[in-house]
């Protein structure tokens, strides 16, 4: 059976994890924002910004980790914009988020075109290469499946732990979870609702931008138009699937990555009979089905989407 063969190949699992990596960043970022009570639909645009800034910084000579840092900072900057619009000004989070997506995408393309007006294909950079971890990478099957990834994939996995630790083990995480449930509880205890929310949005947006940066600095080695192609939106759905928990977010991203990797391989096997668009559809279809099953019982952060104004009843 070719299906079993696909599942048994180390190559398939390696691809699944690679495809999942930007989603892990993105879904963690969305999770942090939403835990603080703010939906960040700027995610799709922030992915583009991260992809563009990280790649361009490296191309200009910043070094790979310098590029990662600059991508994160650029993401945080757009997060700050979304934060100011939605938190103290209390504007619609949907409208602001979609606006940020359009703005961030256009600004990225504009910058790209201004910097490289005449090129037909973007210059390539020396991207992150798969790490060769002693012992682990050489294990049969498990080695190539799990341990021949780039540093950014391991950074994404580490971020799952970091976000989980901060949210559930530190006073800061306690305050973030509280502000997403009942901002007046936070205010009554003398903490600043605005500072917590804006901070969370900036941190979350930085994570999202890393998802974009992974694409241009690790999965590929250059920036292309339209390369994000809805990955941000998938993260918004995955957060619900994950019930706003970092561990489940990782699981959701991996599941999606696996579907996607499976779909690519299936195309090769039976592509002659079934149109390829059907396969492209599968991961999205499955994520909708998963959402329907999970989201009905979803325990939304109670204050999600609700702006907070001091002293209002």
């Amino acid at each position, binding site marked *: 059976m070719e299906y079993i063969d696909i599942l048994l190949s180390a190559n398939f699992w390696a691809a699944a994890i690679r495809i999942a990596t930007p989603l892990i960043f993105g879904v963690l970022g969305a999770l942090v924002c939403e835990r603080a009570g703010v939906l960040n639909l700027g995610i799709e645009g922030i992915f583009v910004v991260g992809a563009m800034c990280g790649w361009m910084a490296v191309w200009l000579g910043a070094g790979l980790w310098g590029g990662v840092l600059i991508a994160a900072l650029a993401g945080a900057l757009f997060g700050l914009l979304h934060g100011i619009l939605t938190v103290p000004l209390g504007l619609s989070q949907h409208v602001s988020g979609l606006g940020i997506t359009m703005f961030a995408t256009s600004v990225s393309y504009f910058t790209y075109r201004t910097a490289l007006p005449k090129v037909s294909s973007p210059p390539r950079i020396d991207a992150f290469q798969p790490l060769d971890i002693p012992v682990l990478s050489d294990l049969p099957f498990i080695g190539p499946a799990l341990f021949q990834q780039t540093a950014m994939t391991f950074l994404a996995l580490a971020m799952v732990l970091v976000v989980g630790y901060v949210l559930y*083990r*530190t*006073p*800061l995480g*306690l*305050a973030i*979870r*509280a*502000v*997403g*449930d*009942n901002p*007046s*509880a*936070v*205010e*009554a*205890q*003398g*903490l600043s609702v605005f500072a917590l929310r804006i901070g969370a949005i900036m941190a979350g947006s930085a994570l999202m931008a890393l998802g974009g940066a992974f694409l241009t600095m690790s999965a590929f080695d250059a920036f292309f138009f339209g390369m994000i192609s809805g990955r941000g939106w998938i993260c918004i759905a995955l957060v619900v699937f994950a019930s706003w928990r970092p561990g489940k977010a990782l699981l959701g991203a991996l599941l999606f990555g696996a579907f996607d990797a499976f779909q690519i391989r299936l195309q090769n096997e039976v592509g002659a009979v079934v149109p390829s668009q059907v396969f492209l559809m599968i991961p999205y279809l499955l994520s909708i089905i998963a959402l329907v099953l999970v989201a009905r019982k979803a*325990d939304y*952060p*109670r204050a999600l989407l609700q702006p907070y104004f*001091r*002293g209002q*009843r």
Partner: protein
Amino acid sequence: MPETETVHPLLSLQNITKIFGDLVANGNVNLDLHAGEIVALLGENGAGKTTLMNILFGHYVADEGRVMVRTSSGTLVDLEPGAPQAALEAGIGMVHQHFTLAENLTGLENIVLGTESLFARKFSRSKARAKLQELMQSSGLEVDLDLRVSKLAVGERQRVEILKALYRDARILVLDEPTAVLTPQESDSLFNTLKLLAAKGMAIIFISHKMAEVLGASDRVAVLRGGRIVADLPTSQCDRHKLAELMVGHAVQMAEREPGNPGEEILVFKGVSAGEGRELIENVNLSLRKGEIIGLAGVSGNGQSMLAKVLSGLEEPTAGAVTLGSQPLKANAAAAIQSGVARIPEDRHHDGIVGAMSVEENLVLEEIRKPAYQRFGLLRFNEIRKRAQEAIKAYDIRCSGPLAVSRLLSGGNIQKIVLARTLDQEPAIVLAAQPSRGLDVGATADVHRRLQEARDRGAGVLLISEDLDELFQLSDRIAVIHRGHVSEPMASEELDKKQVGLMMAGHSAKGEQAA
């Protein structure tokens, strides 16, 4: 209280003035608070009590005046305005009417929130736990600290709120309408705790509009009316009538019941069952006549809401039939309104009005299709405005005008909108569910008068209430609902409160325990 204490208040509000638009929420308010005393801040809805406390706690900044707090060294200093953090540090703890608890956290987490450095690398809970154990023991505020707040009952949540203040070593405790959500037993235990805390030297101020608890639990009463302090005197010099008069500004006419003049049957429930689980009614037989008020007594959660839903056309009975006049009642809210059922819902904020809409829009909501308010499908704004102005005047709805946003009005004024909308249609049947819950004396008297007027006009009124005083004051006959079963209504003269109270707890009319 000792002489020196009188001279040296712990907290002093001086000339506080706060104006919202045209409304003077607080005007030149002066109030002192001393260690060891319990002060009641009494006033009607909209008198400015909550505004004053929000200024004290830094949610609002006063336009004029100062808030002064005694420091540990004994001098009075200005409290930084508009900063809850400053109020907390000065030892002011506030228990809001709508609890400020994050429900996804445990009680302990809510209490320590904000007391530890945000950037600490992890929690240190053992010290906090030890301190709270001690506080719980000394104050009698027992609560399971490791349970999520969403799993706690209302009374327990309030205990967490008070512990929050105690944990921060508050010297001044402010409680906004603390008994609004409590059962009578829980209220008693709350006031016992407050007395204990005051005896230990805390200064306590609680906001209320219930005279019984003010008289029972406070040392001193400050009465607010129209944003100004109209009286500040020891509780021992007060009685119910005096307080009511101070609150309202004139002598209050309590509605006196006159026997009704019941006519023919207008509403008949015959073997009606509906709903399931906790919220159900079973085999309900009830007949309401024109020109009478039937009081339906019961502890909430015994099926009253389902009965109201059936009568409102919101729920279809699973068995039996409801007849209105000679017509069967359809399970359709619009049809219920059409056939003359006036609905005064239990949750007036949620079901009574559309909060985001204006007063005038809410007033014509049920009649919007009538030719009086629309022509060719277009609204007749002038007519709607005229209607609203009349209703605002007739029902004394306190608002800035027909265009005021309904959500921002006080509960009493929202109820007046509901009354004006429903009763002015001259309904055949009035369904009044907990019509005075959460309302002050003036507004309650108003609701009662309106219900009696409807009855005298010939409407049949079904009054669902938990308040025995209200039931006996208004009802011609009283029935009791318990676990979905409704007892045979009896003339209220033949019943006494104790008997009804027992029936509400599940005993049958004759006294023995029901099956």
